[in-house]
């Protein structure tokens, strides 16, 4: 009997490895990331994007409309350009004016609808919207690069490629609102539309369209300034513009509030990794793609810069680690047995977390046929996970806690450091914030994100309860444990549902939560501006809508 048949399948990495914030904060985009899945769908189903209107003056003020024929439905991006005083240009969510504001809506807005949008969209969260509007967004110019690009094109030359690479975008979105905010369509209205039902698909679409708008805008402004001297961007250089995004704590609670959904995301990624590691042999095409992606990565990572004192050394180490990977990934490894597992194990034993997770990205990359369908299963109807099974006995719930929440039970919450922070919602902007429990007021209004502490407290309460008591009776008497009990039951069925760290500890780095979520979006060039907010780039290198049918779809995420 052949030896290979008897050997064990490599299992998915366990949650206790994957769901550590330190590792989650080292994730990179993969081919399962949401924006990449969007572009694959747009390409495969031949979505058509057209510029329907572009009434913008020399200051960038006016209206533009792009239509998207997405399979059976039509959508429109409506963009409003504004004149913004420099002192009002801020990435923070407290801003009230922006260089441009956007809405993605169903169908094609008529003049009446356009008037309504024009009096609401520029106000963003201060406006009101209808269910025919799907996503709301705004963006600010990267002033230096924007003006430089317009000036160069107007004068008939291409902008400096190094400057383009250094910034990577012309505009930066500062908020993208979906799922029913301010009256726009609830997610339930999209879940039966196959083209938009994947997680954050509509949000990715608006950002992709905004990118096209920003490039059309600079070429248009250059034309207005330079007249017949003006030139358009060289197509190769054009692709090097992504879209920026500035993201703060506002998106952090999402990963905690949607445990079953996060499990789907993580499971898809880990399943992809396990499938690739289990391959007995690498085929020639996969090896070639892997080598090209790795080679391109050296150049790509050379352009990943940040002023952050923690992230920059990590990037430098990642660059060195990839050189080591290059050296290890010789012909004998890649033509050997389980070659991608060998690469992964090399990374696990020798490289930094940043590099280990980069290797995950790299080895998944050549295997679209094996993994791409996983991207279609990254959503879940969370209502199906909501109901508590009250027939469970308290002793069984306690056992589940011992199995799945050792990370919570091991924390000593008597120590102030273990509960130094608290999550709250600010009255000023209705946005999530992280406070210092023992220094700032407001802890009595804490949000339920202190998972480890609350599970710990549930476990103690269960200690005092007879093990055979039904959960229904226990929770009726002790409703303060209800949210934690629900999480435990979800965790029992969804292994990757919980971040295995203390989210109120003194040493929490919220940016790790943001990084993980943004990697699932498909973000690159994480640029922390503190431990609570960062800038990123989306769609840098991506083909434009009219290029989606060409050759350029493979490896675009690894740079030119």
């Amino acid at each position, binding site marked *: 009997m052949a030896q290979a048949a008897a050997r064990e399948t490599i299992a998915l990495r366990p949650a206790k490895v994957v769901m550590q914030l330190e590792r989650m904060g080292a994730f990179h985009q993969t081919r399962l990331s949401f924006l990449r899945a969007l572009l694959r769908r747009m390409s495969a189903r031949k979505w058509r994007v057209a510029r329907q209107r572009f009434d913008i003056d020399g200051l960038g003020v006016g209206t533009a409309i792009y239509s998207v024929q997405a399979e059976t439905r039509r959508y429109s991006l409506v963009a409003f350009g504004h004149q913004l005083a420099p002192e009002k240009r801020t990435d923070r969510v407290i801003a009230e004016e922006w260089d441009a504001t956007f809405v993605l809506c169903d169908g094609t807005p008529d003049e009446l609808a356009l008037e309504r949008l024009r009096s609401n969209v520029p106000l963003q969260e201060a406006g009101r919207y*209808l269910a025919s509007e799907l996503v709301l967004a705004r963006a600010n110019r990267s002033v230096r690069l924007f003006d430089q690009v317009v000036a160069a094109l107007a004068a008939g030359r291409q902008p400096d490629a190094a400057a383009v690479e250094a910034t990577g975008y012309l505009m930066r979105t500062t908020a993208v609102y979906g799922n029913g905010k301010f009256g726009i369509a609830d997610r339930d209205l999209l879940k039966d539309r196959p083209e938009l039902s994947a997680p954050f698909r509509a949000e990715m679409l608006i950002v992709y369209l905004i990118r096209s708008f920003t490039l059309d805008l600079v070429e248009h402004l250059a034309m207005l300034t330079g007249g017949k001297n003006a030139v358009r961007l060289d197509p190769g250089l054009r692709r090097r513009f992504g879209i920026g995004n500035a993201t703060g704590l506002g998106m952090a609670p999402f990963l905690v509030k949607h445990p079953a959904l996060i499990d789907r995301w993580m499971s898809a990624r880990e399943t992809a990794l396990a499938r690739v590691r289990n391959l007995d042999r690498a085929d020639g095409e996969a090896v070639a793609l892997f080598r090209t992606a790795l080679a391109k990565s050296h150049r790509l990572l050379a352009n990943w810069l940040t002023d952050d004192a923690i992230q920059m050394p990590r990037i430098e180490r990642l660059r060195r680690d990839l050189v080591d990977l290059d050296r290890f990934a010789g012909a004998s490894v890649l033509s050997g047995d389980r070659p991608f597992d060998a690469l992964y194990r090399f990374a696990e034993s020798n490289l930094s977390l940043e590099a280990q997770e980069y290797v995950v990205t790299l080895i998944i990359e050549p295997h679209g046929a094996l993994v791409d369908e996983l991207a279609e299963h990254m959503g879940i109807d969370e209502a199906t996970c909501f109901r508590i099974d009250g027939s469970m006995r308290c002793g069984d719930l306690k056992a589940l806690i011992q199995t799945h929440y050792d990370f919570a039970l091991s924390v000593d919450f008597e120590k102030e450091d273990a509960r130094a922070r608290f999550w709250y919602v600010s009255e000023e902007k209705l946005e999530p914030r992280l406070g210092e429990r023992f220094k700032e007021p407001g802890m009595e209004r804490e949000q339920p994100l202190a998972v480890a502490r609350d599970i710990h407290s549930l476990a103690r309460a269960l200690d005092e309860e007879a093990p055979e008591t039904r959960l229904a009776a226990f929770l009726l008497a002790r409703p303060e444990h209800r949210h934690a009990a629900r999480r435990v039951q979800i965790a029992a069925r969804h292994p990757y549902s919980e971040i295995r760290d203390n989210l109120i500890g003194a040493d929490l780095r919220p940016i790790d939560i943001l990084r993980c979520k943004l990697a699932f979006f498909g973000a690159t060039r994480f640029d922390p501006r503190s431990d609570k907010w960062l800038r990123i780039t989306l769609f840098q290198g991506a083909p434009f809508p009219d290029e989606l049918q060409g050759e350029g779809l493979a490896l675009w995420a690894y740079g030119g």
Partner: protein
Amino acid sequence: MIVSLNEIETIVLKAARGAGMAWGLAEEAAQAARWLAARCLPFEALFASLLESEAWRSQVRIDGTSLSPRLADGWLCPIQAGAWLSDLGDNLPVRIERVLCPLLLAPFAARRKGQFELAWEGATLLFDVGAVASPPQRLAALHIARTDAAELKPAGVFEARRSLLVPNKGGSSIDVAGWSKLQNFEARDYVPASLGSRLSGAGAALSDND
């Protein structure tokens, strides 16, 4: 004003918490509101009056599958009772005595499998594999403020069912008075800014202009 289901879920979650409900019950309240709004049933006045009552603080007594307030003149909270009803599984019959806003029990009953009815004085709802119907009856009885007993029992036979499933096509027109009461409760969840929190809470102190 037209609001989305997510806005309804969010405001009821925060308002219930702001009024003092435990987080897990506030989550139940939010799902219940969403269920009602998705069927074009009113929820805002019911929740506003429930949150004012603070009935979830009542002591309760369980007797088999029957729930009642411990004090003879007490009233039960339909979210607390509904959550228990949901937790019980699919057992029948269930009796809930002296409960406020009994329509708020419907979303919890709807999670159960099988065919059964939920009835209180003057109102009956038939549940049949997720669908909900009612015989012609006074709408006022559905929205009654309190009832001595609500019962969940095997379904009787209805003549002339009227489906309660008027699907929400996106956006609910809300009663502004009820909604603003919910907003008042919601505001109790928020922490006012201090100078320190403005700088540290969101972590932005660097220039954004580049």
